[in-house]
């Protein structure tokens, strides 16, 4: 529990409305916001009067991507809610950009706020008077209780077990290094480099897996990998164009990188969507049917979501049936195109368990329905979209996992150049990060392990 660093959180409990605020409070709030904000008129957040609103964009400078169009209000201490510098980033691109903005400011040095922490700071800094303090305690209490409940629910799943396992592994690793440091007289052989690499590597891999298996993290980073498949001339290319027309994601050029021309990025209601093999989609008009199938199958591999396009004005081909079969195990949306023409397709041969959307790509009919379906399908049951406590805690977990991953990576990279007590520092960092997730911080664990595994003492 720290009280003078800069905290950030999504401060509006929103549902699906797509408008929300990322709020920062603390001495670095303005500096951090400045790192991710870009004003088209070159205005600066730090200079100029307090309590004003600036228009601009939030940009991830690592890859140049524009995340959202925003209004930023800058409020300098002390006339703010918390009596600290506050920056509020009003996003409107939808829940996912909102989360990405949050992630971005966390990456630039803010810490995810604890439940009720803004209010707590307001109180500690004298903003809320004594008469209201009882209420403050209640708020913090209920939020933490709720937070704990949610955390417990999440942890009851496999995560807790895996974190505990990882922590055990780390304690073992730390014990090796610490025993080597603290007991130079004992017959403790210097840690075997291969063993350290092997143990740390295992932890690193598993942390990496956990981080990338977090669907949320994956979507934020890579977008929903989407394949548009179908035999030639069903209208894949028109569909792509229809989607691109309104929702093509703005991606600023990063100097020195060449853009991958066979992918297109969409931003559908805030959900980053990545259409694979767009070159294949566009070329498919004049190729043989068999080749088209092969291509579709290839595109489908490794995708998160499949849009299987069928021509509604024709009977189902053998090829269509084959593609339906092949995509059975995937998350697939059946897209029946050309509904502006007389319908020939027979619905009874379509899979009953897959969602079905009727569109006319050329006339722009049903595209909105399709977008809804894409969003629902990509986030089904996982509530990625609901900006409420469960996600906040999950975000917290993800941040902690990343910290641990970073530390264990530094450990591995430093094995040959850093001295043991510095290496131990990295391991401690990783242990602390994992401990945060499951709420344990006991330095004695390491000593306990040393005493149980090494014969120490004269």
């Amino acid at each position, binding site marked *: *529990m*720290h*009280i*003078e*660093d800069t905290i950030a959180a999504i401060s509006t409990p929103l549902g699906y409305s797509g408008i929300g605020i990322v709020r920062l409070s603390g001495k670095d709030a303005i500096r951090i916001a400045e790192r991710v904000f870009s004003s088209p008129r070159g205005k600066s957040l730090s200079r100029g009067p307090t309590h004003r609103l600036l228009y601009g964009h939030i940009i991830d400078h690592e890859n140049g991507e524009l995340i959202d169009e925003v209004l930023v209000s800058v409020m300098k201490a002390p006339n703010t809610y918390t009596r600290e510098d506050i920056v509020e980033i009003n996003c409107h691109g939808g829940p996912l950009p909102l989360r990405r903005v949050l992630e971005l400011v966390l990456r630039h040095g803010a810490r995810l706020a*604890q439940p*009720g*922490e803004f209010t*707590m700071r307001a*109180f*500690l800094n004298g903003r809320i008077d*004594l008469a209201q*303090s*009882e209420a*403050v*305690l*209640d708020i*913090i*209490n209920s939020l*933490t*209780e709720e*937070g*704990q409940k949610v955390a417990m629910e999440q942890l009851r799943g496999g995560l807790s077990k895996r974190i505990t396992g990882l922590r055990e592994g780390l304690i073992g690793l730390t014990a090796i290094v*610490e025993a080597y*440091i*603290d*007991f*130079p*007289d*004992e*017959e403790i052989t210097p840690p075997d480099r291969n063993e350290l690499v092997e143990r740390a590597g295992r932890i690193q891999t598993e942390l990496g897996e956990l981080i990338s298996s977090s669907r949320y993290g994956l979507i934020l980073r890579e977008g929903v990998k989407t394949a548009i498949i179908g035999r030639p001339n069903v209208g894949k290319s028109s569909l792509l164009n229809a989607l691109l027309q309104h929702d093509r994601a703005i991606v600023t050029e990063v100097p020195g990188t060449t853009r991958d021309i066979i992918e297109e990025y969409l931003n559908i209601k805030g959900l980053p969507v990545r259409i694979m093999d767009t070159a294949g989609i566009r070329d498919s008009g004049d190729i043989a049917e068999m080749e088209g199938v092969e291509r579709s199958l290839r595109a489908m591999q490794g995708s998160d979501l499949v849009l299987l396009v069928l021509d509604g004005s024709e009977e189902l081909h053998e090829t269509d049936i084959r593609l339906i079969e092949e995509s059975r195990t995937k998350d697939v949306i059946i897209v029946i195109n050309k509904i502006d023409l007389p319908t020939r397709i027979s619905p009874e041969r379509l899979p009953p368990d897959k969602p079905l959307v009727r569109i006319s790509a050329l006339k722009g009919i049903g595209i909105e329905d399709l977008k809804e379906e894409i969003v629902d399908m990509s986030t089904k049951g996982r509530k990625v979209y609901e900006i409420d406590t469960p996600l906040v805690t999950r975000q917290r977990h993800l941040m902690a996992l990343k910290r641990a991953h970073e530390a264990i990576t530094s450990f591995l990279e430093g094995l040959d*150049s850093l*001295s*043991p*007590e*510095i290496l*131990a*520092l990295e391991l*401690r960092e990783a242990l602390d990060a994992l401990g945060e997730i499951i*709420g344990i911080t*006991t*330095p*004695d664990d*390491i*000593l306990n392990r*040393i*005493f149980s595994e090494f*014969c*120490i*003492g*004269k």
Partner: protein
Amino acid sequence: MERVDYDIIVVGAGHAGCEAALAGARMGLSVAVFTMNPWTIGQMSCNPAVGGLAKSHLVREIDALGGEMAKVTDRAGIQFKILNRSKGPAVWATRVQCDRALYRRYMREVLEGQEGLEIIGGMVEEVIVERGRVWGIRTNDNIYRAKAVVIATGTFLNGLIHIGLRNFPSGRAGEPPSTGLSRSLRAIGLRMGRLKTGTPPRLDGRSIDFSVMERQDGDTPPPFMSIFTAQITNPQLPCYITYTNDHTHRIIRDNLRYSPLYSGRIVGRGPRYCPSIEDKVVRFGDKPRHQIFIEPEGIGTDEVYANGISTSLPEEVQEEFIRTIRGLEDVRINKYGYAIEYDFVYPTQLRPTLETKLVSGLYLAGQINGTSGYEEAAAQGIIAGINAALKIKGESPFILRRDEAYIGVLIDDLITKGTNEPYRMFTSRAEYRLLLRQDNADLRLMEKGYRIGLIKKEHMDALLRKKAMIESEIERLKVTRVKPGVINPVLRRLGGSEIREDTTLYQILKRPEVSYMDIPDSHRNGLDPEVVRQVEIQTKYEGYIRRQIEMAERFKRIEDIRIPDDFVYRGIPGLSNEMVEKLEEVRPLNLGQASRIPGVTPAAVSLLMVAVERHRRQNHRKKGALS
């Protein structure tokens, strides 16, 4: 206040008692130190060495605060060695083998020569308390009145020695235990527990074949423990290393039923880091051998200490297994190993000044608080002595934080977490290990020692000069650029990559392969080696040190939020009964300490933070209304 016999009475003249008594007297107060036997002042009752990992850190800190242990260690030292030299500077440690008799003698002489300090022979039977304040003590034949009492009785409280299945009350081999005092502390209301420790046999060196053992000499020149030491005059002696073997282990295993440990006679909990040989053989059955470190007891004696085979097996079994060890085939045992059980006071009953929460003016220091080790004891001794003196003078208490000193870590651990085995310091207990190096103990603490009155002005001035030199040299390195033509030959020689353009010396020195003395003469200042060392460490580890300083800064903020003495935990909405109980037991001084109590959750700390602020404002308002 009525007339007193002494300002401070110290009970016990071991490592804790000596430091406590000296600190009190040097701060200008009248001090009496009670010992059952003046010949055992400063007795090293376990192995004849001071220092080692994390312990030399403590000794250096005591030294920087104006304590005595480091100086006496250097004077009595017969082998000086730096451990962990191949590892980073934060975990270097100095270990000094001492002449046990010389150590006792020098420490006694210091006490005898100290103005305002009186040594009194006698057994203290009772601490007299009046209305929650200490009144004085009663010995077997008298009573003495004092403003403060420091109890530093080591393992003597209800000491019970075990050898085989035989046991008898004793404070240390050949010395009587103290039973009355233990009863008296219980009567005051202090909760007490029982711990156990053990020692190995002492051997006659004339009966040992050292030629078949590994010899281990100290470093030359000897690295001193105290920064005030200028030279070592004692002859230097080697240690030897030998090992147990299968045969040894078999004998031990066959006789376990005669071990008080394994027959259930010992109830006290022993230290896991210092297991008996019985323990090692049982718990690590797959280890083919265990190391024995043969330490000389002194210059004028042939006795040696067999470190590594602490045992409480019967005498005849000790004889049998020890003779299976290489070099010890014909050994004569001067004194048998034994285990000792003793009473200790649960240290969560103490304030960070080591004053008991129950009785004002009563301080506890050393093994009585559940620690083990001379260094841990001495560290507590000096803190208890300083605080007893400060309290009498009406000054604010002296407390070291975890980011300032190992002493801070030690005391905070004890009073916050308590202990259920003899507590020993390890560097891994310190979360700010890179900051708490033994090489910078003076830079960290000497100014504090000076302010208390334990460090002389001349030493303080020298420290300030040293600090200034370090700073100005680092500044110079940062602004001085060196040409490739000048430095590349050096870098080539050291196997480092060459530079292409002018680079600051600071950047050059940051490279792991470059040490200060590698910088060409033309670009180097003739500096004291201690200054050079600080410049090197602070340059090379800059990034990591800064990281730890930032951590420590964050830690300090929460540490600064004080919890008032009269704070009521019960009734804070959301704070569970379990939390309330833990908090009430420890009664932490500040939020930082509260957050370290085992089982207290971050959520509880948040609640506490708000509740404490509320309390503060309520009091503020009340005071406002009164005035």
